[in-house]
């Protein structure tokens, strides 16, 4: 017993030594400060957006929303047990998908627009065909041992999921089986984001770490630390070389893959609420972050300053999204409404 403990302690010491070396290597390239460098960037000024649409239809908290690749339809999930597909331009509901389990936490639209997926406390990811006459369950992906926190389609044939069981998983939709299980996090995985080329993805978890994974090899490629609490939201910067995270520690951070470390932190002394969700404008210059304080705050991603706020929800903002054409931003809230702004 004692010998084993001594062994583990020695190994842990080795780990710590390696970590110190890595930190030193990271520090060595940290030769500049993003926000001061951003002095040379064009100014964005104050961003004041107007509320364009308020989508009413859900009867309970909205937990998740996702834009279709056509930038016009959008799917939302609420704990009233329904998925609603909206035509955001007219405000009409196109499809209503009744869920077997009302405790839904995540929803996704396939790039083709044919399928949507959702999941939550039922530990499953269910895929629906919404182009059929009435929404049909295509697959029930059932292998996670924890709640489903996030799902994203690669195509109509593959889907990625993140779960409270600390793993992420790539599934084949033809067979309904797991293809790759990504294990490395030691806390519930809360969110994931696919890279543009779909070769890699990043995940954020309750262990306060963000990780980069290779889809082809099935392994963790990089780990990023810095947050002091659960990471709830994660999105790639449009250039594909950086990503932004939002956390319960009330801050957002940008990390760069090439420098292997944090680039800048977005926080403000007056912001005392956790970040629930985030999305970026299509140039990457603006970050729209939803907070527990019922607002969505807008950050200048380069200068690290708050440049605006979207107020209007009567409860926590639980999800945000900018469509591919970048024409606006949608916020979804526990107050059961979705709002479109630009």
């Amino acid at each position, binding site marked *: 017993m004692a010998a084993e403990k001594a062994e*583990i302690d020695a*190994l*842990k010491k080795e*780990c710590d030594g*390696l970590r110190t*070396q*890595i930190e030193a*290597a990271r520090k*060595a*390239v940290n*030769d500049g400060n993003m926000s001061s460098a951003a002095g040379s*960037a064009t100014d964005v000024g104050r*961003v004041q957006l107007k509320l364009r649409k308020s989508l009413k239809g859900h009867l309970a908290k909205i937990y998740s929303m996702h834009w279709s690749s056509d930038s016009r339809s959008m799917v939302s999930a609420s704990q009233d047990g329904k998925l609603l597909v909206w035509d955001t*331009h007219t405000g009409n509901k196109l499809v209503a998908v009744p869920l077997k389990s009302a405790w839904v*936490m995540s929803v996704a639209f396939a790039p083709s627009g044919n399928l949507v997926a959702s999941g939550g*406390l*039922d530990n499953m990811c269910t895929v629906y065909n919404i182009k059929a006459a009435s929404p049909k369950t295509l697959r029930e992906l059932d292998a996670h041992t*924890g*709640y489903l*926190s996030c799902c994203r389609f690669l*195509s109509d*044939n593959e889907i990625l999921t993140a779960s409270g069981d*600390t793993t992420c998983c790539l599934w084949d*939709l033809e067979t309904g089986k797991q293809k790759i299980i990504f294990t490395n996090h*030691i806390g*519930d995985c809360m969110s994931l984001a696919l*890279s543009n*080329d*779909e*070769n890699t993805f990043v995940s954020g978890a*309750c262990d306060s770490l963000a990780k980069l994974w290779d889809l082809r090899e099935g392994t963790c490629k*990089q*780990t990023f630390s810095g947050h*002091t*609490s659960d990471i709830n939201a994660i999105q790639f910067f449009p*250039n*594909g*070389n*950086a990503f932004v995270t939002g956390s*319960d520690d009330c801050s957002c951070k940008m990390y760069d893959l*090439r*420098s292997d470390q944090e*680039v800048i932190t977005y926080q403000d002394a*007056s912001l*005392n*609420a956790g970040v629930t969700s985030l999305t970026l*404008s*299509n140039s*990457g*210059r*603006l970050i729209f972050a939803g907070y*527990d304080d*019922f607002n969505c705050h807008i950050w200048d991603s*380069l200068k690290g300053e708050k440049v605006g706020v979207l*107020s209007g929800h*009567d409860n926590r903002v639980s999800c945000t999204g900018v469509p591919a054409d*970048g024409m*606006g931003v949608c916020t979804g809230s*526990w107050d059961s409404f979705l709002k479109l702004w*630009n």
Partner: protein
Amino acid sequence: MAEAPQQQQEEEEEEEQPSSVEETEADEESEEEAKESVHTTPPRPLLSMRSMSTVDPDDDSPNMIVYRKIEDIVTLIQDEEEGVPIRTVKSFMTKIPSVVTGTDIVQWLMKNLAIEDPAEAMHIGSLIAAQGYFFPISDHVLSLKDDGTFYRFQAPYFWPSNCWEPENTDYAIYLCKRTMQNKTRLELADYEAENLARLQRAFARKWEFIYMQAEAQVKIDRKKDKTERKILDSQERAFWDVHRPVPGCVNTTEMDIRKCRRMKNPHRVKKSVYGLVEEGTQSQSPILTPSHHCRKGTKEDVEKEILFLNTQIDRHRMKMSKVAESLISYTDQYMDYDQFVTAQEPANPWNSDDPSLWELEASKEPSQQRVKKWGFSLEEALKDPAGQELFLKFLESEFSSENLRFWLAVQDMKRRPQQDVAQRAEDIWAEFLAEGAPSSINLDSHSYERTSQNLKDPGRYSYEDAQDHIYKLMKSDSYTRFLRSNVYQDLLMAKKKPETEQGRRTSLEKFTRSVGKSLTGKRLTGLMQSS
């Protein structure tokens, strides 16, 4: 209700902007610790009198900070001198004790919190009501109206800052008690009757116990003064309106279910509203699975970690100054296309109700802006179907389209259903790589070897090396020629709006420069990440 406060000066709440209500109220959370920030707590503005708030002033968890603020307001608003007129109203045959109208509350909020817009005062008031600090006496919906509706203030016993988490047993006792009291004003609403029926089913085995508790409560209540009972009954009801809201109302006490299981909040008080001693069974949501084992560091885990860390030590890390530079140049380049920063043309469909932008995007006749974007990177050109088409046409004119066709074929194969992948992989080999292939591509011997090895067990990623190599080739060779080609330049210039001679020349210069810049500048193409 309100203590007799000492004299005090009026102070304003922190400034609210008239047009945007900056609310910092939060739902009851689970184990949120306040972030260790260096900010100083702003002085408590209303506190020259003694507040009824019992929140520890050093408690800086987000909810408590907000409750304290609200409680300071609620204390002042009930003050005999500085607050709203709380009085007994004579109604037909009865007296309604201790009420104030919605209008009075709205007016007071506007005056004392420096709010100009009554709608904003109603909004703040509704949010405070939703948390349970005051309530309409005749409605389950906790919101503030600017009219003669009567409101009453909640007793501090029931305040949210006491961190109540009432169990369903308490709720069952409450509903049961209501049915026993035989008063029209205490009749159950439909949703309450449904809740009661559900609880009876759920607690079938201990219903006798619950019934007895309810009876005991009724006995206690009967001993109280009639007026006092009216007030207490309404406060109790308002408490349950917060914790078991009317369907359709937002439940302000609910926590994010993902965080529920890991609650470590020291404030959580598991006490019963009716003083019940904790029994064995707690009413937990049946769907919540018991928390999975926490992954502790076993020897294996640590060894794996060491292996991983070793791969990370020598990785190449880009200088932060370079990273900053590339992020800035990327955003500067794309900000013209960012609708939040630069107005787009044609007008945003959400604003103008005109979907022509979407139609244009989908069309094969790209706008000049769109064509310009193809010059940013090969990725952009290929992302746009029209760009891809033009590039292919250009390559065909040069008799060198096999590279792009190969790349596209592999992309397509990766999205196919698993069962089709093997066949497609074979087809691609036959078309592009086999001896004497009709569209033979030029691969270096290393990639060729790797690829033919991969094809022994064909899968989605069999062609990764080859695709990578070909993409780099296209980027450095054909793509640059494409951008200089007539077919691209014509398209780029043909869509320009007619301008004066002078204007045209300057614009032409600008375009040529920007296209040139995008070719030579340090730019992120992002498609193939370098690790």
